[in-house]
């Protein structure tokens, strides 16, 4: 959680941009108007067409491999235009993607659900009339980020439930393993989560935060302390149940929040501020030292917000996007060096030089990200 409270966001106050009217063209697909066929094996990703006219594009993905796979359609800067997750071996799933703007996109299968996936270019021709107007592009950015937020909270609730269940059955090793993973989703959408000034301290408060009299230390970090320092306490299970209730409240309330494009951009910047002040310092996860998971998640969230705004950025300042791509890639490369298995090395294993390199990479990324809001607001 941040030490600097964000301006509270309310659903009512922020609907500053008009959502574009929904374009209801019939789905386009390969050949006869049927969906584009995707055959996803463990090592290949065969897409039956590499081009489609702008509008709604339908894909039918068949997992012919032995691993669970995912299918993505990306725009510039890895903006997720559409995705299907968790496609088991032998299963087929449908994906309908709204692509009103023509241009170069990328398809990707992710067998095993890891890495960048098996990618191929996908060209969208023409544009749905009106879809490139500034209002429409910004509305699409906000809507796209809203989808991201909702999907992250949904996944976060499922993972946090696993974590809480482990706590409740007293399985400390399992709970410890799930702690950094379950936090990832929260950390990705932290600016949205923090905008609820009452939920944030309950879910992500630290032990030494200032609280109103009678308010207890609860949430992820209280359970972290139980798991790593004091041992599970009589009320650990109850703390877990409260955490779940708070997460569900977040889900309900977040569904009504509509961030403005400028807030989205500032959220991207604040996530990097979080990294600089909370993660590279080892302050956030002081008992478990799993700060690099949060680092990764904050950067993911920042990139998602920037990616949502990318079409607007590319219209207004075409030079900024490639710089952002390069700097995000630098951070990705750096973090990969600290990977250990499915996770990361512990903060306590980092040398001063490691922290210095991380600081440099985040400084280098933070400067261009701090320019996004002004480009978007276009004043």
């Amino acid at each position: 959680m941040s030490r600097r409270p964000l301006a509270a966001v309310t659903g009512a106050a922020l609907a500053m941009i008009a959502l574009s009217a929904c374009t209801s063209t019939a789905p386009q697909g390969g050949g006869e108007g049927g969906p584009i066929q995707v055959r996803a094996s463990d090592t290949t990703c065969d897409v039956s067409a590499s081009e489609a006219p702008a509008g709604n594009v339908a894909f039918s993905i068949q997992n012919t491999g032995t691993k669970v796979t995912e299918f993505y359609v990306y725009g510039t800067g890895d903006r997720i235009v559409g995705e299907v997750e968790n496609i088991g071996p032998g299963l087929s799933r449908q994906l309908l993607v709204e692509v009103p703007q023509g241009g170069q996109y990328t398809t990707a299968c992710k067998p095993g659900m890891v890495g960048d996936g098996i990618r191929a270019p996908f060209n969208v021709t023409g544009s749905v009339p009106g879809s490139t107007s500034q209002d429409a592009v910004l509305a699409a950015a906000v809507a796209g980020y809203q989808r991201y937020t909702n999907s992250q909270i949904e996944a976060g609730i499922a993972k946090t439930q696993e974590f809480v269940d482990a706590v409740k059955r007293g399985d400390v090793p399992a709970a410890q393993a799930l702690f950094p993973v379950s936090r990832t989703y929260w950390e990705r959408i932290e600016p949205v989560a923090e905008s609820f000034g009452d939920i944030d301290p309950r879910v992500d408060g630290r032990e030494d935060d200032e609280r109103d009299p009678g308010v207890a230390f609860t949430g992820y970090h209280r359970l972290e302390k139980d798991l790593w320092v004091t041992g599970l306490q009589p009320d650990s299970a109850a703390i877990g149940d409260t955490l779940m209730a708070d997460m569900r409240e977040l889900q309900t309330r977040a569904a009504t929040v509509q961030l403005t494009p400028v807030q989205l951009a500032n959220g991207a910047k604040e996530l990097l501020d979080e990294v600089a002040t909370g993660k590279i310092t080892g302050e956030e996860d002081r008992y478990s030292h799993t700060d690099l998971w949060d680092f990764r998640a904050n950067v993911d969230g920042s990139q998602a917000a920037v990616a949502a705004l990318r079409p607007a950025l590319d219209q207004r300042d075409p030079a900024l996007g490639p710089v952002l791509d390069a700097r995000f890639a630098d951070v990705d490369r750096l973090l990969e060096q600290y990977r250990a298995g499915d996770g990361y090395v512990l903060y306590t294993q980092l040398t001063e030089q490691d922290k210095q390199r991380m600081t440099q990479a985040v400084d280098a990324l933070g400067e261009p990200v701090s320019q996004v809001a002004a480009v978007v607001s276009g004043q």
Partner: protein
Amino acid sequence: MTSNTDEPRPGMSRRRLLGWTGAGAALAGVGAVAGYSAADTDPPPDPSGGVVPFRGVHQAGIITPAQDRLHFVALDLTTVDRAAVISLLRRWTTAAERMTAGAEAAPGGAVNRNPDAPPSDTGEALGLPASALTITFGIGGSLLDKLGIPRPPELADLPPFQLDTLDPALSGGDLCLQACANDPQVAVHAVRNLVRTGFGTTSVRWSQLGFGRTSSTSTTQQTHRNLFGFKDGTNNLKAEDTAALDEQVWVPPAQGPAWLTGGTYLVARRIRMYVETWDRTSLTEQESLTGRTKGEGAPIGQAREFDIPNLGPGSPILEDAHIRLASAQNNGGARMLRRGYNFVDGSDGLGHLNAGLFFLAFMQDPRRQFVPMQSQLARNDKMMEYIRHTGSAVFAVPPGLREGAYWGQSLLEG
């Protein structure tokens, strides 16, 4: 400079400039009739030292009369992409020229830009005069290595000296920026904004604040004192002695390389001084170690500061006195232009001040000038008992910029 309405003048504060620029911009094409009404009055005299010209034959901040305050920073490249480096050096030059003129780092500055954007100037120097700010740019040998450019032999790394206790985190650097001003806030503002501009291309390796200039670089200046309480740099090269500067400081055309002709080399040494033990040393001991009197600063055996020390037979100055070991006579005639500052970086955690002298000296060839002198001092100077060299760096300092040129241009495009 983005427009001639930004042209600053001596004595103009950033705040006044801001108002003036704003008015000028608003009235562009109409003729400046309101806002800044100084066309009819001269700016008031500026006790801060006014504006030091940014461009010229040599870089400012070398023979410029030493200002009172220093913020020095050494940076490393985080990329070897030449185009990125050139782009940064162009932006740095523009920002540095603006700031030395008393303007904000970039147009729009601290408050007059899109409110959704972070300000393009950090703002802490708003309303402060130029304060004789100079920003001097230097290039480390490691930068040339990274970009595949041969090092001039003069830019070799310094050899180790006896008793060196160098901290790698306080040594070296691909680039340096030396900001000097009569107001510490102005110097810090300059470095901070340039560091910010560099994110993504450079990162700070180390930085040093200094106060109380320990050297005079002009005959118009009094000799200041170091933290041992002694006048420091009495025999320094002075701006007025142009023949000596040509002989000792400026790189002559024959020496090469071409991009350094008219430039110089800078040796920086962070010298920790154990002031607590020094302060328990008798006056006689302090004076004989130094070779000068503490009050007047006269050579031992003489009466006045600028009297010529008697270093010949029968001299009252000890064989291992500091001024003898450091003297030109003792070093084959080698001298250098010293421009150091005192520092106190808080305390050392053991109850002592982390204090000392940040030694800065400009010279034609460190191998001929600094190295022999420092080997002498490190081996023989009794003062070494009270000091340790904790940081070290050498930089090539290119010549001054003509109109339109940017820092390092003749190196990277030449």
